[in-house]
């Protein structure tokens, strides 16, 4: 039995549907990412799991217990917010201690001055716990500061500390890295993964950044227009997307798509070239997708285009080609050595390995295809 399961969650804000019958199971200790463009309902889904938002229909179960009607404070989850939501009037230590104070102390023990005197042991234990968490996150020197005196990355750690200080069933994170600058974001990505390995806790992470989803998660759920389109390990989703929407959303730069056609004999025709690829089925219009790293510059290539733009990333160079008959530019990933000669306006021939392509029908669903064993590689 999974640790957290959400079943047929439906939610709409007024007339606008936000989630349509969405279900998801999360196993213990998993790092699950909900990824999708803004407005796809991923944050609402997380808030429904947390209990901060009520679903119109559906059920939330945590550790086998139906918590749909239970308030957030009683669900034993911890959340890290996009804005960090630190209490600005409390010091870092007090911020981290707040969940402990609220849960472990009665009203008398929470009183200022007398509280610590009445329940001295409890307060000492709480201070030790805060100290431990601060040690883990390396924020011990900051404990006496106020959130207003911290940088974005430091606030991020404090927010994590506040979530970590007790042992919740799961950590919910709502775009926690989106307010950081690019370098820090990449750094925190590694740190969050490290933290997940160390804590062995369940993480449910919401992001619009497919790179965060790909780098950190054990499993990711791609959401769009209020539906989960595909759930699976990042590698599966990248290599084997279930639909054109998923293929387009995951991967940067975006997957190249070319219009094609399946002719009467089941052969795939692309930009006037009949390929060896065989599709079972009727004559129909299809879309072929191929990722930039699967396109190779080759003198004998069957396709060609003109260089219109170069993006130099140091380790890789992305070359944008204008190809006759293709609605959008085709992007190739090249090693810097290969691309030295390619000025703007250069004519380039390219090709791909037939096993590297993805085919989608007119509705965007994946099409199966076969190809003869011997192919011009």
């Amino acid at each position, binding site marked *: 039995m999974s640790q957290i399961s959400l079943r047929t969650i439906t939610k709409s804000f007024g007339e606008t549907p936000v989630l349509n019958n969405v279900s998801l199971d999360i196993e213990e200790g998993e790092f699950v990412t909900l990824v999708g463009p803004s407005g796809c309902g991923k944050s609402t889904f997380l808030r429904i799991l947390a209990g*901060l938002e009520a679903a119109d229909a559906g059920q939330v179960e945590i550790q086998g217990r139906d918590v749909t009607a239970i308030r957030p*404070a*009683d669900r034993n989850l911890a959340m890290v917010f*996009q*804005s960090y939501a630190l*209490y*600005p009037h409390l010091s870092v230590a007090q911020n981290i201690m707040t969940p402990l104070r*609220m849960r472990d102390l009665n009203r008398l023990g929470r009183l200022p001055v007398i509280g610590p005197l009445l329940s001295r042991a409890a307060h000492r234990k709480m201070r030790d716990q805060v100290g431990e968490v601060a040690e883990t996150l390396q924020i011990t020197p900051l404990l006496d500061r106020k959130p207003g005196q911290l940088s974005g990355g430091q606030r991020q750690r404090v927010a994590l500390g506040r979530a970590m200080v007790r042992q919740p069933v799961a950590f919910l994170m709502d775009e926690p890295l989106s307010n950081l600058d690019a370098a820090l974001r990449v750094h925190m990505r590694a740190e969050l993964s490290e933290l997940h390995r160390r804590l062995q806790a369940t993480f449910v992470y919401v992001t619009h950044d497919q790179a965060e989803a790909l780098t950190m998660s054990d499993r990711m759920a791609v959401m769009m227009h209020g539906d989960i389109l595909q759930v699976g390990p990042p590698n599966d989703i990248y290599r084997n997307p279930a639909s054109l929407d998923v293929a387009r959303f995951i991967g940067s730069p975006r997957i190249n798509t070319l219009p094609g056609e399946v002719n009467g004999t089941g052969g795939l025709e692309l930009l006037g070239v009949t390929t060896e690829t065989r599709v079972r089925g009727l004559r129909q219009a299809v879309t072929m997708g191929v990722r930039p790293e699967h396109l190779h510059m080759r003198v004998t290539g069957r396709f060609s285009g003109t260089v219109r733009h170069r993006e130099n990333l140091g380790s890789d160079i992305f070359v944008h080609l204008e190809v006759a008959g293709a609605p959008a530019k085709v992007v190739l990933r090249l090693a810097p050595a290969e691309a030295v000669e390619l000025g703007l306006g250069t004519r380039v021939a390219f090709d791909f390995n037939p096993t590297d392509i993805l085919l989608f029908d007119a509705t965007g669903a994946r099409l199966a295809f076969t190809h003869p064993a011997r192919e011009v590689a």
Partner: protein
Amino acid sequence: MPQSRVYLWFIGPALLLMCVILLIPILIAGGLSLTDYSLGNTGASFVGLENYERIFTRSTYEKMFGATFRYVFVVVPLTVGLGLGAALLIDSLGRFGDLYKTIYFLPVMAALIAMAIVWEFAFHPTIGIVNATLERGCGTVLERWDWYAQGCERTFPLWLNDRDYAIWTVSFIGVWQGFGFNMVLYLAGLTSIPPSLYDAAEMDGAKSGWDRFRLVTWPLLGPTTVFVVTISFIRSFQVFDMVEAFYPQGGGPSKSVYVMMFAIYEKGIQQNLMGIGAAITVVFLAFVMILTLIQRWLVERRTHYV
């Protein structure tokens, strides 16, 4: 090389205006407070601190301080408390919030002098609605309350014209008139609290409304509260028009409502005793100054979060 003096042109106008319309009048008032000047006299003689000595020794001025502080220490806590309470209630409403907001804010917008006349009718001992309503309660269980029984036996208080009740009645009207203003300030403060903090409080286990108030609302309203309390103090020290409307002569029964502003007006304008009027003004200024300094200190020490 001579230093450029162009900066004088930038700060000059503001500096000049500040001196002419603020600093110099205060200095003149300070100077006048040391003389026995009357408007129209060609000269005045220097009397030293005699005016101040009077303010702190004569019984009239003792009454003045009594009335002022009674008014201030009733009106400030009540307007702040009621303002906060009304703001929290309205904030928790979905639909009729704007309606309540308008209703509570009406007394603030109304001219106090006109309202004073209405209240004067309401508190009239014989034809006023207050005492008429109280008389209806005679003969009921309310008579078990001694004060009420006495009222039925003889008459109910004269409210505005009884020296034991006058200052409290005036304070009541001050509260009625003033809390809507604080409510609006608190409402503005409440809208600036990020909703994610309440979400965080809920996740952290703050279950009751009181917990949320203690953890989030009250601390985050800190800057608003400092401002509201200061402005309420200053407004209460300044109360004048109501007293002038109720008691054009002499500041109420046995001078029990002889507040500072009215004293300044009576001495300086009505009796043309500029010296003593200026001295009360200086004392008044000192109070406001102390309040402002306390506010600055609080803002910098406690409630400055960012």
